[in-house]
């Protein structure tokens, strides 16, 4: 008997509040699903301690330490933002407890900053980039990438270049986060792309508001120069802008209508019932993390000793709303499917609806292992 304490740390306040809310909802739904509503594993009660990192690395760090030391959490899950995640990594090592990262995406979390207590259910930047590259990687395609001018953007482009084998990337445009006027950047891209032969794409890997999509739509690039837009998925409110780009292609992590499996069906049904809205990007992530935790505990029969848990989790496969995920032994990154989509404008939805073109199976996305053990 006894309890298993799980600390769930997210940016409940601050600019990422919306994301954090989804993670938390997803995580709680996930626990319910995985325990069949009992909230117990191997006779142990699961207790979730929610903590707010306010989107600040120092706060997150202190919160994690407090979770391990003061609240005696056995496992911690979170956080929302990559900088916070990176700051947290050494704390897990210090307290010799597991930190399951979800949904912070930075590659280095499971890369050079990794330590053996770190697992991640969320996809990393490379997976995103690789999937997007896979969606566009056809012979004859000419691509200009538009990305944030920061580590996130540059890493993503680097990964995209690695995974682009057949298409040609002719231009990289980096714009600062918080750019409000995309005219100049787009003008540079247009000048580069317009006289190229072949199918022309602007591949956008952009995080943060404002986004360049409205501007791209207003410029009629497709009609004028035959330039198409490609980008990854996002949360639903952000995909409203996609409505202007019927036919746009890209790859995404999760959209509630795409994966066909019982877990997702359960999630969509329950989420609708509770919130009168479909689950979103980070809801699925939160649920996956919860399922991973429960599966690991099942495997150790409720034993929360860190080394046992690590042993149990390495190589662990578990069913999530987006199908089977597997923690890769080497860097503890969950390998997972991604989805190549095409946007359809459907008046029934406020956002552009991504329709599945093909599942990009986890096996296809051979992300290099970047950590050193």
């Amino acid at each position, binding site marked *: 008997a006894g309890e298993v304490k799980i600390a769930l740390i997210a940016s409940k306040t601050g600019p990422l509040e919306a994301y954090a809310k989804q993670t938390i909802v997803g995580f709680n739904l996930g626990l319910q699903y995985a325990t069949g509503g009992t909230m117990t594993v191997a006779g142990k009660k699961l207790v979730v301690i929610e903590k707010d990192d306010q989107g*600040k690395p120092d706060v997150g760090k202190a919160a994690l330490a407090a979770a*391990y030391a003061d609240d005696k959490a056995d496992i911690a899950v979170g956080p929302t933002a990559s900088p916070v995640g990176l700051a947290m990594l050494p704390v897990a090592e210090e307290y010799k407890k597991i930190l399951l990262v979800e949904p912070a995406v930075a590659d280095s979390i499971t890369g050079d900053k990794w330590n053996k207590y770190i697992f991640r259910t969320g996809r990393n930047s490379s997976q995103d980039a690789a999937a997007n590259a896979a969606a566009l990687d056809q012979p004859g395609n000419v691509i200009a990438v538009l990305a944030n001018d920061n580590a996130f953007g540059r890493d993503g482009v680097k990964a995209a270049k690695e995974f682009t084998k057949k298409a040609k990337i002719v231009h990289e445009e980096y714009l600062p986060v918080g750019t409000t006027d995309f005219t100049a950047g787009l003008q540079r891209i247009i000048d580069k792309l317009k006289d190229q032969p072949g199918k022309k794409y602007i591949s956008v890997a952009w995080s943060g508001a404002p986004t360049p999509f409205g501007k791209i739509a207003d410029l009629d690039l497709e009609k004028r120069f035959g330039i198409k837009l490609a980008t990854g998925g996002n949360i639903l409110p952000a995909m409203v802008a996609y409505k202007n780009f019927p036919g746009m292609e890209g790859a995404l992590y999760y959209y509630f209508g795409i994966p066909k499996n019982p877990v997702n069906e359960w999630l969509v049904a329950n989420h609708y019932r509770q919130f009168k809205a479909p689950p979103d990007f980070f809801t699925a992530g939160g649920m996956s993390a919860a399922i991973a935790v429960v599966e690991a505990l099942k495997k150790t029969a409720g034993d929360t000793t860190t080394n046992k848990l690590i042993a149990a989790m390495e190589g662990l496969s578990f069913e999530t709303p987006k199908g089977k995920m597997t923690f890769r032994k080497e860097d503890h990154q969950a390998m997972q499917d991604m989805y190549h989509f095409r946007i359809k404008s459907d008046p029934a939805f406020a956002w552009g609806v991504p329709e599945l073109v093909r599942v990009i199976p986890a096996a296809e996305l051979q992300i290099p292992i970047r950590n050193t053990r």
Partner: protein
Amino acid sequence: MLSRLLSHDLPRSRLLGWALVLIVLALVAAPFLFPGAKALAVAAKTLVFILLVASFDLLLGYTGIVSFAHTMFFGIGAYGVAVASTRLGPGWGSVLLGFAGALGISLALSMLIGLFSLRVKAIFYAMITLAVASAFMTLASQLSDITGGEDGLTFKNPLWISPAFEPFENPVLGLAVDGKVFAYYLILGVVALLFLLLLRIVNSPFGRVLQAIRENDFRAEAIGYRTVVYRTWSNVLSAAFATAAGALLALWLRYVGPDTTLSFEIMLDILLIVVIGGMGTMYGAVVGSVAFVLAQNYLQDLLKLGATALDGVPLLSQIVSPDRWLLWLGVLFVLSVYHFPTGIVGRLRAMALRLKA
């Protein structure tokens, strides 16, 4: 003796005196009195803020210069230690070298800003520093090879202030003493020393001239003080102390990032603490930092209690939700500016005067 130590700048209010004694005792005994990672973190943050705010008060309260670039120097100090520790590996050498480098940069930069822009009108100076600080933040995230960009830098401390250092087999006075406790006391010592030094500076002939400049810079010039020189000195000194505070914060967190040291939010916190505590009194920095850091860290917990009590009440429960803690911090913010026009210290001193009369 005590009076000399405090440069004859006594609290001048019995209540304030007791509050200060209490705060000092609590901070000295914090690791033993309030066990737990969070409590210690709060205490350490309070200490760093005391130094940071006191250094800012030298500028704002004593010299009357409104600057929004103070976090810049705070950040430089923190990054100095962090960059050196990541590049050269952990160790005292790196820490000292990093701090020395940061100090150099801070001094040069503050001198430059001072000489360039202290000639403009006060409001312009404030606005310019606002823009400079935001540009510096952009720069820090752009130079990601050195600074780690938005992700920041995580690094290791010299051995005996790193958490892995556990010199005693058994708990001392019920506390498992590790490197973090040593780090805490290191910070406490340095902050105490530098605070007394600041107190000395504001009570020196130099410090009195700063006040004169604050009151009427035109007149100060006319009796023979070169205000640009004094203001620049004030700028440089306060930058130096802020750099030290930054270095201490870095040592405590073993992490730096733009949000932790450079953000405008921290600048606002500093401003608010100065005003709540009482401008132009070093003790205001102490009282204000304690009040503010406590509120910042425990308000959310407090609201949790309120929210459970009000669970179910439609709009109200939304408003007292712990996720809306910023709302309440904002309200406190406004109310304290309202109700403590001269700060807590000013209030207490006025009360003491009235009692005497």
